[in-house]
C-alpha cells in the first residue's frame, strides 16, 4: 500500500466521524497545551535567570580550594589540624607550581583571607571589611577591571569593590536620623584597625593607613564586596594576629585562582586539577549546574502536562476500540479484498496517530496563545513592580523554544499512535470470517 494512499484513507476515515474525532482530540489539545505552557514557563524562568546572571565571572578563571578529604568543602583558614593526610590536598607552593605546569594555564594566583576581625574607618563612618590578599600586584589578573583608578596594588594601597561604600555606617547615628550616604572612597585615605585577642581575652589593636587606589566595576560577584590587598601584607597581619608563622610550603593557601589562556580550556584544566585531588570550580560548572536545574524543571513541568496527555491517550484508546468494534465488518472486508494484517494495522495506527496529530496542532495553538496571555499579564504586573522598585525585572515570563512545538507535535502523534496500538493490533489480527459475520 502506498504511503500517500494510506494518508488519504486515514484522513477520509477521520473526517467520517468528525464529532467523535474532535471530542477525542480535545483531550490531546488540553494535554499538549499544558505541556507547552508549563515547559515555556520553565524556559522563561531559565531565560530570566540567565539574564540576571550576567557577569558571574571571568570564564578563564578557575577557583581552586584545598581538599581536606571526605565529602564537603571547607572555606577559610589556610591549614589547621588534619586527620587523614592521604586524602588531604593543600594549596602549597609546590601544588601551585604543579598547576602552572598544566598546559593552557596562564597564571596561578594564591589568595588568602584576613583571619582576624578588622574594622575600616573613614571619617565618622566604619565598616567590617572582607579583606582578600591576592598573590599578584594587579587585580586585572583576576579578571576584574576598575571603574576608576588603577588595578595595580602596592603596599599600603587597596582596590575595593563597587558596593563596598554602601557597607559604611555611622556608629553614632542617633535613632530617627537619616543614615549618611555611602562615601566616595576613591583616592581617599582610610584607617584599618586589626584586632588581636590573647588567651585571656585582652585586646590589642593595630592601625594601618591605607589608600584606595582603585574602585572595581560591578561584577555581581564576590569582587563587589571585596577589598583587595597585596598577599604579603595579609600574610603578615595573619601572623601577627594569630601569633604564629605560617609555612605555605606545608599548610598551603586557602584558595588559588588559576587563569587559563583560553576559556574553552577552563573545564579541561579544572578537571585535571580535580583529578589531582583539589576542589576546582569554574563559572562554566556553575552555569552547567543552573542549566541542569532548569532542564530538570522543564522535565518536571513537562511531566505534569504529560499527565493530561495520558488521560487523553486513554480517550484515544477508547475511541479507537469503539471504532474498531463498529467497523469490524469493514475490517473483514479489507482482509477479504487482500489487505494484509500490516495494512490493517497501519490504517488504524494511522487513525490514532491522526487524532494525536490534530490534537497536537490544536494544543500548540492553544498553548502558544496561553503563553502570550501569560506574558502580557506578566509584563503588566512587572511594569507596576518596576515602577515601584525602579529596578530591571525579567522581560518575559514564558518563552517557547523552537524545539518545543516540534517536540509537542511529534510527542502527541506518538501518544496517539501508542494508545491506538492495542486496538489496532486487535483489528489486524481479527479472523476474517468472524469479522465479516460480525453483527
Amino acid at each position: 500500500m502506498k504511503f500517500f494512499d494510506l494518508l488519504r484513507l486515514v484522513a477520509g476515515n477521520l473526517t467520517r466521524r468528525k464529532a467523535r474525532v474532535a471530542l477525542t482530540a480535545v483531550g490531546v489539545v488540553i494535554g499538549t497545551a499544558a505541556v507547552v505552557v508549563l515547559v515555556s514557563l520553565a524556559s522563561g524562568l531559565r531565560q530570566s535567570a540567565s539574564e540576571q546572571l550576567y557577569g558571574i565571572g571571568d570564564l578563564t578563571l578557575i577557583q581552586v580550594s584545598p581538599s581536606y578529604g571526605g565529602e564537603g568543602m571547607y572555606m577559610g583558614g589556610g591549614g589547621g589540624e588534619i586527620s587523614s593526610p592521604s586524602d588531604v590536598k593543600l594549596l602549597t607552593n609546590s601544588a601551585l607550581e604543579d598547576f602552572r605546569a598544566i598546559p593552557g594555564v596562564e597564571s596561578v594566583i594564591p589568595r588568602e583571607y584576613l583571619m582576624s576581625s578588622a574594622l575600616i574607618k573613614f571619617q565618622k563612618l566604619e565598616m567590617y571589611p572582607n579583606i582578600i590578599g591576592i598573590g599578584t600586584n594587579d587585580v586585572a589578573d583576576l579578571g576584574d577591571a576598575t571603574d576608576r583608578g588603577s588595578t595595580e596594588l602596592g603596599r599600603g594601597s587597596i582596590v575595593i569593590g563597587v558596593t563596598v561604600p554602601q557597607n559604611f555606617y555611622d556608629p553614632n547615628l542617633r535613632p530617627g536620623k537619616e543614615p549618611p550616604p555611602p562615601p566616595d572612597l576613591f583616592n581617599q585615605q582610610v584607617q584599618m584597625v586589626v584586632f588581636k585577642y590573647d588567651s585571656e581575652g585582652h585586646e590589642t589593636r593595630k592601625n594601618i593607613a591605607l589608600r584606595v587606589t582603585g574602585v572595581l566595576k560591578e561584577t555581581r560577584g564576590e569582587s563587589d564586596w571585596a577589598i583587595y590587598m597585596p598577599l604579603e601584607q595579609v600574610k603578615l597581619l595573619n601572623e601577627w594576629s594569630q601569633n604564629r608563622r605560617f609555612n605555605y610550603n606545608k599548610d598551603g593557601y586557602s584558595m588559588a585562582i588559576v587563569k587559563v589562556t583560553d576559556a574553552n580550556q577552563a573545564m579541561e584544566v579544572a578537571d585535571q586539577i580535580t583529578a589531582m585531588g583539589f576542589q576546582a570550580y569554574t563559572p562554566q560548572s556553575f552555569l552547567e549546574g543552573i542549566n541542569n536545574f532548569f532542564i530538570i524543571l522543564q522535565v518536571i513541568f513537562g511531566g505534569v502536562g504529560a499527565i493530561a496527555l495520558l488521560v487523553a491517550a486513554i480517550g484515544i484508546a477508547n475511541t479507537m476500540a469503539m471504532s474498531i468494534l463498529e467497523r469490524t465488518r469493514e475490517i473483514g472486508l479489507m482482509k477479504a479484498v487482500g489487505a494484509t494484517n500490516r495494512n490493517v494495522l497501519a490504517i488504524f495506527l494511522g487513525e490514532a496517530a491522526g487524532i494525536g496529530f490534530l490534537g497536537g496542532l490544536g494544543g500548540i495553538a492553544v498553548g502558544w496563545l496561553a503563553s502570550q496571555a501569560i506574558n502580557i499579564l506578566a509584563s503588566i504586573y512587572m511594569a507596576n513592580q518596576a515602577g515601584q522598585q525602579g529596578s530591571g525585572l525579567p522581560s518575559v515570563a514564558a518563552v517557547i523554544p523552537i524545539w518545543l512545538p516540534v517536540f509537542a507535535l511529534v510527542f502527541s502523534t506518538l501518544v496517539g499512535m501508542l494508545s491506538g496500538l492495542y486496538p489496532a493490533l486487535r483489528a489486524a489480527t481479527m479472523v476474517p470470517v468472524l469479522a465479516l459475520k460480525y453483527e
Partner: protein
Amino acid sequence: MGGQVVRALDNVDVEIEEGTFTVVMGPSGSGKSTLLYLLGGLDRATSGEISIEGERLDQMDENALALFRRRTMGFVFQSFNLIPSMNALENVGFPMQFAGTNAKQRKTRAQELLAQVGLENRADHRPSELSGGQQQRVAIARALVNAPKLILADEPTGNLDTSSGSAVMRVLSDLHKAGRTVLVVTHDPRMTHFATHRIYLLDGRVVGEAEYESAALEALQIE
C-alpha cells in the same frame, strides 16, 4: 457451547474445475458458507487440505493468504460490505490500494468495471444513494478489480428483491461466460439455471440431488 465441537463440514471432498459456474445449495447451517470461506482463505479448516491451482491454502500463513486472496479471488457478500464513506468508484478501486496501484490506474480500472456492471453513471454515488441491486453490482465490480480467477459469492441475492436479484445473477453468469470460475452459495433455486455444476450440502456433508430433495420434502412433512 460447553466446548462442544460443531462440525460445520465433515469429510467434504469437492473439486471445482476452472471455468465452471458452481452453485452450492443447502439449508441454513448446512455448512455451505463455511465451504465458501474455506475456499476463499478467510477461514481455516481444523483438518484437511484445500488447494487452488496446486497451492495449499491450509499451509499458508496469514500474510501469504492475504496476498493470495488479493491476486486470485473476488468476494461478493450478501450484505454488500461497501464502505459507506466512499462513492461507488472509490469502493470499486479500494482493493487496488492494497496492491499498491496508483490512483490514476485505479480510477480508470474502476470506471471500466462500473461500466461492465452497467453503473457507469453512478460512479460518484455513495452506497446509501444506491439501491440494493446497484450496491451489489458495485460489490461485484469491486470483486473483479484485481482480475481474479475465482469469484466467490455468498448469498449474493439474499438481500435483494426478485428483479434486482435476477440482474445480479445475470452479471455473475456473464462473468462465467467471459471465462471466469464462479462459485455461488445460495438457497435461491433460480441460481441453478445458470450453473454448470451443483453441490448439495446437508449437515456438513455433500449429498446427491435426490437425497437433498427428499430431505427437503421430509422437512416439509415434519412441519
